[in-house]
């Protein structure tokens, strides 16, 4: 029981990060109907930006952890959004209006490019940082096992919940959110009403990248190591989360992320830890075969 509770906490932490990345996949799919396979690598880039920012702070002798984290978050969000914008501008926009396959191939190319660029400039070895936040709270102690939630875990879960609430509010309640949803449903009509569709798409990419950046900072702080290849696996898992929740659905991406995180944690704890990635990809296959619209996707009836 105590062991299961611990896995729940670990799974939630993992799920929060997958959920944040998954939102980027689902939003981009919603608005331009393509899977942005470079999104996982955008996340990887953000982790490197976070490492660089931490290194700079260490060099400047900043010791306040809240200050450091805020600074790193802002820097990572800013630069990662710029990456998101640039990727869309250079690799996808010129292909808009061509076949559906073209931007997909371009995305895979962009993914390989980012991985190699980081490998060349940052090196192929894993980069460690010293633990930023140590310790946690003991929630429950039995003779056999002690359940603990780390401060980092708590911070990750709380930040993610807050971000998701803010994000849902933005999409459902603000003028930008409305325009974003309108573009999702009928880009041509949105333009006829005066919406700058290109700018809305750019902004969607930047938002997705910003959320991935938060996840990138979290991963850096949580695991303390990054390398140029982390975007691949995290990206595909977040993509699986988006598909599980129903690609194109925002609450779906959040729910999917959570479920993938939990499944991975429990699978690793009770079945075979070395096969935990198989669990995720098995789910991807099952969902695609049995319920391609996902848990919260919409095969919806509309009057025409």
């Amino acid at each position, binding site marked *: 029981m105590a062991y299961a509770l611990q896995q729940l906490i670990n799974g939630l932490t993992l799920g929060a990060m997958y959920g944040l990345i998954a939102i980027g996949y689902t939003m981009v799919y919603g608005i331009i109907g393509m899977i942005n396979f470079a999104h996982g690598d955008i996340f990887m880039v953000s982790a490197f930006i976070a490492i660089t920012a931490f290194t700079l702070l260490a060099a400047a002798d900043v010791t306040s952890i809240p200050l450091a984290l805020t600074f790193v978050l802002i820097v990572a969000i800013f630069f990662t959004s710029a990456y998101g914008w640039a990727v869309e501008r250079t690799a996808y926009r010129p292909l808009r209006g061509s076949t559906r396959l073209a931007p997909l191939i371009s995305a895979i190319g962009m993914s390989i490019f980012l991985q190699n660029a980081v490998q060349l400039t940052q090196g192929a070895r894993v980069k460690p940082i010293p633990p930023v936040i140590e310790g946690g709270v003991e929630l429950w102690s039995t003779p056999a096992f002690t359940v603990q939630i780390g401060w980092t875990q708590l911070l990750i879960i709380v930040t993610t919940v807050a971000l998701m609430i803010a994000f849902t509010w933005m999409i459902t309640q603000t*003028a930008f959110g*409305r*325009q974003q*949803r*309108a573009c999702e*449903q*009928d880009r*041509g*009509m*949105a*333009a*006829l*009403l*005066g*919406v*700058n*569709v290109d700018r809305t798409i750019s902004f969607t990419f930047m938002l997705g990248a910003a959320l991935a950046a938060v996840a990138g900072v979290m991963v850096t702080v949580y695991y303390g190591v990054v390398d140029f290849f982390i975007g691949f696996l995290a990206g595909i898992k977040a993509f699986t989360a988006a598909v599980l929740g129903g690609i194109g659905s925002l609450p779906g991406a959040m729910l999917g992320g959570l479920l993938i995180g939990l499944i991975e944690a429990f699978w690793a704890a009770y079945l075979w830890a070395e096969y935990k990635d198989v669990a995720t990809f098995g789910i991807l296959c099952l969902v695609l075969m049995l319920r391609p619209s996902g848990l919260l996707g919409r095969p*919806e009836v*509309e*009057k*025409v």
Partner: protein
Amino acid sequence: MMLSMEGVHAHYGHIHALRGIDVAVQVGEIVTLIGANGAGKSTLMMSLFGSPKASAGRIVFDGEDITRLGTHEIARRGIALVPEGRRIFARMTVLENLQMGAVHADPANYDADIARVYAMFPILQEREAQRAGTLSGGEQQMLAIGRALMSRPKLLLLDEPSLGLAPIYIRRIFQIVRELNRDHGMTILLVEQNANQALRVAHRGYVLQHGEITLAGSGAELLASPEVRAAYLEGGHG
């Protein structure tokens, strides 16, 4: 002059859809465009928005050459379209659809504009919080018109507004067109298959055939013209 198209050509894929169109709309006029299916009526409307772009000729709106502008920039100059098939945002609420119509409008006018639309279409106020996709066809058409009015357009384009609607809604639509023009001084360009009703409500009309204007005149003249009668009025469209 509100709008003039001068020798406009446009292509839709490989089809040469518009072949040298000259159309003019004066301030305060209702102008109608009639023609058979596939004559190029919708293409003409969409070409005003640069989609497809004119391959030759020019389009001047309110004194400005808009031929090369992007779709959203043209909309922001003050042209609003009620498109064929309505194209409301089905998964958004009625109110959100109307708000989308006000994307480039002055926020200071928002309350007055929404009150005006609700006064014109009380059903929209009743259904304000409902998803637009659940409205009936006629109600969706009202919503599409309301959405277009939210931006206070200088020129309103209506593309087949009566298509597929019950007779009661068709009457209401033509009544609205007349009211908008008479009471609000709205300039309107109306594309219709329902040539009889359209010519009755319009000041002037154009007949479009195979991408060319073949006939132009006042509504009454066109109604009386033997060619129009033979092609569009006595074939069961009236």
